[in-house]
């Protein structure tokens, strides 16, 4: 998709092309975040899936090297993350570490890949390196393929477990969400307010990352709460969008990916209460916007949910509960 976009804009001249390339930067970070989430889900899906959808593609791309105590290298790189002198060598080191981990075991391979994706997400210049681009290029298609398979299985499991759930458990999933301790809520609200002031003056990249993370957390945790500061959130988003037109899209992708991850993880762990709550939060936050990721997948789960509620004749109970 990104390649197609770049090819199209080339014909429109250098200025447009540079603008489009500029907006590709946060998209690559979002892509790394999505792959990171998928990889964490894949790690829970069993060794055969892990081999087929992660190890094999990396092997075919020629990434495997001799064993070299990848776990120790991982700890070393983690320790050196804040050292700017290590930045230039970080991506090649990650590639070598992943290659060594492939020859060792799946557990360390998973940890090393997740670390590399974390680094790509959090350090903008790393996301531009040849190793990062190569890594994302290798794992994107197979993880996407696994996601398709997994979506089917997830939907099947969701339907089956919903049907097996006690009525009281379903009702519990519809109870108003407990908002946590007041101090925590006040701290996050104050953080949003402070951030709003800071984004006007502080440097661009640091604020975008921090703003997106804070907004994502705040919206997921509190968007259905009575004292949710919707107008303040909108102000912050508008201010950021004014400075980077791709911000809102990136934020929505971040939110959708996180919600989808929590829904899927809830289903995989048999915690349908979390899955149902997150489905409702997705609906609440995105208000039927078809351009948001996972729109159709989550709509399908929602229909299953309502079918079970109807079958079990739970509408009255749920309306009393919620």
């Amino acid at each position, binding site marked *: 998709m990104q390649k197609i976009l770049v090819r199209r804009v080339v014909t429109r001249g250098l200025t447009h092309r540079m603008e489009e390339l500029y907006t590709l930067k946060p998209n690559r970070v979002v892509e790394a975040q999505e792959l990171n989430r998928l990889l964490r889900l894949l790690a829970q899906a069993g060794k055969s899936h892990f081999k087929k959808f992660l190890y094999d593609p990396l092997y075919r791309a020629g990434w495997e090297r001799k064993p070299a105590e990848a776990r120790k290298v991982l700890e070393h790189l983690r320790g050196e993350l804040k050292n700017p002198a290590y930045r230039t060598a970080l991506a090649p080191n990650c590639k070598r570490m992943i290659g060594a981990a492939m020859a060792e075991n799946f557990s360390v391979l998973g940890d090393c890949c997740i670390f590399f994706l974390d680094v790509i997400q959090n350090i903008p210049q790393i996301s531009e390196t040849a190793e990062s681009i190569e890594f994302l290029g290798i794992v994107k298609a197979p993880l996407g393929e696994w996601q398709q398979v997994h979506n089917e299985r997830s939907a099947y499991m969701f339907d089956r477990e919903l049907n097996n759930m006690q009525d009281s458990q379903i009702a519990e999933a*519809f109870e108003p969400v407990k908002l946590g301790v007041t101090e925590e809520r006040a701290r996050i609200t104050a953080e949003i307010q402070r951030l709003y002031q800071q984004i006007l003056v502080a440097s661009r990249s640091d604020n975008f990352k921090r703003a997106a993370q804070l907004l994502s957390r705040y919206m997921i945790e509190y968007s259905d709460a009575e004292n949710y500061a919707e107008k303040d959130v909108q102000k912050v988003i508008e201010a950021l969008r004014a400075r980077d037109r791709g911000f809102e899209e990136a934020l929505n992708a971040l939110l959708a990916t996180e919600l989808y991850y929590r829904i899927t993880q809830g289903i995989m762990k048999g915690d349908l209460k979390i899955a149902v709550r997150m489905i*409702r939060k*997705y*609906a*609440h936050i*995105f*208000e*039927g*916007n*078809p351009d948001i990721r996972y*729109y*159709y997948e989550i*709509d*399908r789960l*929602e*229909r299953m949910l*309502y079918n079970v509620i*109807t079958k079990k004749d739970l*509408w009255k109970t*749920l*309306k009393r509960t*919620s």
Partner: protein
Amino acid sequence: MADAQIQINDRVNGKKAILEIAGELDAKTTPALKAKLDEILAKGVDSMLIDMARLTYIASAGCGALNATLKTLKDKGGKMALSSLTKEVRDTMDLMYFTKRVAVYGNLAEGEKSL
């Protein structure tokens, strides 16, 4: 399962509009409704009645599209009302608190009077 279908009939009279929606409103059909709502809003409508006598399913995607339109209408000082909700649709909209935000009438005639 066959894909959901939707039919939308609309009558616009000055700043008032009446829509009749039939079928199912889910992720696949909501964009069609959203496009129609946006088209009607662009005509300067500020009061809208949506009759749902023949609507058999609504997902949060559909409620979201209605909610976005409701916000726009309220910003203009206008309003939205619903009429003839089937039990299935009423249950879902109650659960999403949407029926607390708009007036709901038993039938189209009652709704029309309120516009």
